[in-house]
Structure formats: C-alpha cells, structure tokens
C-alpha cells in the first residue's frame, strides 16, 4: 500500500515559498490556492486553464436559465413545435434533437445535472470511504481484513458494470430528477469508496504509530477524538487530488450510464449521455449537431477537471514539480535537472492514468 504522495510534505514547501511554516493559517494555504501560488511555467498554465474551464462550467450551470432561450424539456415555442432534427439556425443555435428539444439549451442545462451528480457522489464516497478507512486502519483486526478483501474485490471489478448494476438496484426504472441523480451518484459512490478507503487506511496505519498519537492515548484522550483530531487531520493530504480525479471519472460514468439508458429521464433533466444515446441513429444519416455538442461538453468538462487534478498531482510530487528558476542561465539547466531526480522514481508505474490511485496488484 503506497500513498501517491511522498510521506513528508514539509520538504515540498521551503524551496518555493519560504517562511510558510511560521505563517498563520490563511486563505493562501487552502488546497488549490496554495498550489496555484506554488506553480510556475507550463504547470501553472495547465492549472489555470483547468480552473478557467471549471469556472466557465460552474457559471453555465448557475446561469443556465439566463443563457438559454428555452427550457430543457421544452418542445414548442411561440409558433408551434420546434420540430425534430432541425439544423442549426437563428432560432436554434445548435439545432434540435431527434426528440425535438433544443440542443443548445440541453447542452447548457447538462452542466447542472453533471455538477449535481459530481457533488453528491464525491461527498458520499468521501464520507463513507474516509470513515471506513479510519476505522479499518485504526482498529485493525478482522474488520480490517474483511474490509480490505471486499475493497480489493470491488476495485478489481470493471467500474462501469458495477455502476450499471447498482443503478438498476436503486432506481429500478423510476427516474425523477432527484431519484435519477441519487441513483447515479450512489452507483458512482460504490465505485469510488474503495479508493478513499485505501488511501485513508494507508495513511492511518502510518500515523497511528507516530509519537503524538501514542501521547494522546496515554493521557486518556477518547478514541474518537484521537481518530478525528490527530489521525484524520493529518491523513487528508492526498484527498484534494483524489477528489478532482474522481470528479472527472464521475462525469464519464454518469455519461456512460446515460448512454446505456440507465441515467436520468430526458423530461426530468438534461443529461449529455442520454442525448448522445438518442443521437446514435442520427449519425448514420449525417446529422452531426445532435451528438457533437453534448459530447464536446463532456470532453470539455472532464478536460478542465483533469487538468486541475493533473497539476495538483505534479505539484504534490517534488520530483515532478518544476522549480522556480533562481539563476539566469535557466532554460537548459532547469529542463534537465528533474531528469536525474526523476530517475529514482522510474520503477514506480505512476501517472499511468488519472483513474489510477493506489497499488496496482
């Protein structure tokens, strides 16, 4: 079991931001903002691009009713029905779907659905995974062993199939807006819990042997308090990274479920995957606008979140972090410096894919 970040994070700060250690807790040390201040060059560019895309998506979700000319399940305007498969025009900027909805409206409203699912799914898996990981790591024993075996089994299973099975169990066909969102979110949660479980368990195992934890135990601190204040607060370091990577995967899983027909009903909310499913037959007859725009929205959103996650990952690893240039003969020297440092990490299959957190065997 290896965590993704090296054990000692204190080594990562001094070079870039001298004197942070003595500074009071402030907004500058919040997860993403700290990394933003720490980054330089291409890495900063990646992080900022990602943050801008995510920001635009957030804005689209919040302002959807203001941006879009119609409602997500609206089929008729002032002069009758929209009509199915209308090419892009002044009235319908991105055309209409096979079902007669406005593509632009549904693509924008799709951000709302995606964000809701991400938030619910990540919150659930964070809560359950962290709780189980803490308990499993702190107490050990047979509970630990059973949880590890089950988590490994789930981890080895194709995530999409697991999500499908869970989605059927929960929704069983019913799909109101919240019903559908909850079903999808729980399906994604089941897939993600083992990842949080593993990371937190590994950290807990390490932290519980530290002197300060034993000291707390000796003076009779209640177990719950030790677990929350002493262990958990020191074990959360790699969580922001995991959350961003999972958010990206959650969007893809939601879209895949929708594409297979196990997401949210079209009349309840706009969902990109479902719209793509409807557009499969359009493609064969050369109608491109029904599939291109929802699909591009998925790609853009995943891209934004992944860029943020990737940059966080690079910045968390001192071997991959580009240093701030100190001398003037910079470009050549700094470009080749990490090569020798990276050599030590070569055997570790890291960065194999945004989805891969935790051990591979």
């Amino acid at each position, binding site marked *: 079991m290896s965590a993704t970040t090296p054990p000692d994070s204190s080594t990562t700060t001094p070079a870039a931001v001298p004197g942070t250690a003595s500074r009071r807790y402030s907004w500058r040390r919040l997860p993403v903002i700290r990394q933003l201040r720490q980054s330089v060059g*291409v890495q900063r560019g990646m992080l900022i691009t990602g943050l801008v895309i995510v920001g635009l998506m957030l804005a689209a979700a919040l302002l959807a009713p203001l941006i879009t000319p119609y409602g997500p399940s609206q089929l008729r305007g002032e002069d009758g029905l929209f009509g199915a498969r209308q090419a892009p025009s002044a009235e319908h900027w991105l055309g209409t779907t096979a079902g007669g909805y406005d593509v632009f409206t549904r693509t924008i409203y799709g951000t709302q659905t995606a964000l809701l699912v991400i938030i619910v799914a990540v919150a659930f898996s964070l809560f359950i995974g962290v709780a189980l990981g803490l308990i499993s790591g702190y107490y050990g024993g047979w509970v630990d062993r059973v949880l590890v*075996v*089950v988590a*490994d*089994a*789930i981890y*080895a*299973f*194709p*995530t*999409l*199939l697991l999500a*499908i*099975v*869970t989605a*059927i*169990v929960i929704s069983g066909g019913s799909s109101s807006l919240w019903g559908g969102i909850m079903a999808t979110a729980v399906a994604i949660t089941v897939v993600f819990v083992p990842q949080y479980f593993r990371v937190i368990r590994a950290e807990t195992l390490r932290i519980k042997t530290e002197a300060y934890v034993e000291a707390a135990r000796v003076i009779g601190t209640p177990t719950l308090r030790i677990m929350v204040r002493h262990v958990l607060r020191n074990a959360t370091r790699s969580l922001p990274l995991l959350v961003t990577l999972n958010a*990206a995967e959650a969007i*893809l899983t939601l*879209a*895949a479920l929708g*594409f*297979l*027909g*196990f997401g949210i009903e079209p009349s309840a909310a706009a969902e990109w995957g479902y719209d*793509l499913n409807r*557009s*499969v037959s359009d*493609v*064969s*007859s*050369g109608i491109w606008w029904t*599939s*291109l725009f929802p*699909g591009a929205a*998925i*790609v853009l959103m*995943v*891209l934004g979140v*992944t860029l943020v996650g*990737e940059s966080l990952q690079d910045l968390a690893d001192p071997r991959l972090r580009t240093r701030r240039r100190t001398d003037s003969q910079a470009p050549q020297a700094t*470009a080749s410096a990490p*090569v*020798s440092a*990276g*050599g*030590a*990490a*070569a*055997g570790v*299959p*890291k*960065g*194999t*894919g*945004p*989805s*891969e957190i935790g051990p*591979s*065997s």
Partner: protein
Amino acid sequence: MRYIFVRFLLIIPTVFILITMVFVFMRMIGDPITAAQGGRLSAAQLDDMREAAGYNRPILVQYVEYLGQILRGDFGTTISDNRPVTEVLVTYGTATVELVFYGLIVAFLIGIPLGMIAAAKRDRWPDAGLRLFAILAYATPVFFLGLLLKLVFSVWLGILPTSGRASSRTRIELSRMEDATGIYLIDAIRAGDMGHVADVLQHAVLPATALGLLTAGVFLRLVRTNMIGTLAMDYIDTARSRGVSEYRLVRKHAYRPALIPIVTVIGMQTAMLLGGAVLTETTFEWRGLGFQLTHYLSARDFIAVQGIVALLAVIVAVTNFLVDIVVALIDPRVRY
C-alpha cells in the same frame, strides 16, 4: 511455485465476493420473474411462475443452489428468450474477446511509439502535444469518440462501414462453417477467402480505434515516464559516450526496460477495456457481451445479466492473476 499457488488461491475470494454481490444486488430488486413479467401477467400467474422456478424459497437456499450451479458451469436460462446463459456467454463472449484484442493492438501501436517520442523530446513541444493528446484520450468517452469516427469515416468519407462485425454475406458464410471459432478473423482466414478477411478487418478498424485510444493514452504516459527514468541510467550514458546514436539509444537500449511496467497495468486495463467494450459494442452494434448486456438489461432479464457480469468478473480476476505471475517471473523480488 508457492507464490503461484498462493496467488491462485486469492482469485477465489475475489470471484466469490463479486458473484455474491451481484446475486444480492439482483435479488434486492425482487425476483427475476416479477422484474421481467411484472405488469404483463396477473398476480396469480406470477405466483405460479415464481413457485415453479423456486423463487419463493428462502434467499439463502437459492444462493447456495446458485453457487452450486455455477460450479457445475450452469448459469441458468435466460427469461426473455429462453436460451441457456452458457450458450449466450460462449456465442457473444468470443465477439467481445475479439474486440478487446483489437483494442489492445491499437493501444500498443499508438501508445508505445508515441510514448517513446515524448520521452526522447522531453519538455519540448512534441512532449507537450502528446501530453495533451493523452489527457484528451482520457477525457473523450469511447462512445462519443465512436460516434465522431463514424461520422467522419463512414458517413462523410464513406471509406469504412458504420456498424456490425462483418457485412451480412460474410457473416452468413462464416456462421455456416463447421467448427467455427466465433472469432471472425480466425474463421475468415481459415475459410481462405481474402475478401472475407478484408471485410472483417474493415469492420474492426473504427471500433478498435474508439476502444483502444483510451488505453493508448495510458500506455503513452507509462512508456514516457519509465523511459525518462531509464534514459537517465548510467548504462545509457556509457552507451552514449561510446557514440551510439540517440535514435538507437531510445529504440534499442532504453526500450525493453521501459516496457515492463506495461505488463503490470494490463490487468487493470483489461477491466477498463471490458467496460469500454460495453459502450463500444452499443455504439457500433458489435454483437458481443456488452451489446447483449444492454439488451438484456432493458428486457429486465436479470438471470442473463447476472451470468454476463459473473463471467466478466472471472475474466478480470484471471487476467490479474496471470499478470501477477508474469510480473513475478520478470522481477524475482515480488514474492509472498
């Protein structure tokens, strides 16, 4: 030997837990007959059918019986079209295996050379471009990529077929063969008709690309990271000082060590490819397990779903086992 044995035993709990989970999940929505026929039959008729199929007995009894059936290789009979699940698995499993195999080939052909280029041109524009490519390959859902490929290559350019595993003439002729393997490429080659082989390959190009690109991105990153590490080793410096060309250094000296980590991720990639196959098959109407899975899901035929999911779980577990063995053979430090 001891390691192989212990590792083999570890497959059992994994498969067992997964099959149990699927069974419990599927029973939580009620029994398969109500799920499939609910609303179409009267309550009395439903009761009769449940009685006949034994779904009114305690769930534990059913579970033990189900495990026994699976051990004998019997997955039951589908409800919607009344076929033995085992037959469904064999017929469509071969199609999925074929697709996943093509996908892996695409992943190797694209991912490994590009990873080598990225490592050789580290921190320069080809590297940055390839890194963006890898992220895009991850961010694009296979079904969207599939639709785009279909739009461009089959509808606009008209050079490749839109869907299916083969044109109907080829399909009929291949299915008429005695002892057909079900893997079209092998069957077509054995039939000795180049027209059929070309037809099968043409149908495979787009699905394989859609499915393989995601894995290609993963391979690209892996090869890049590892090759950068290998290129920094002393023996590479030694070779360079002897005057070996940069091209040869990358192509010959650093190549092999950088490939080993790929073996270790193939297990996890198989799980991903199988999930991706479900989506690719639906996009391209490739009649494999994934295509059938969505079909049975919409028919609420949970006996069939249960069988398909169990088979996929077994495939993933066995692949992981094989990968671990290969890794142990390559690297003697890995032992229990």
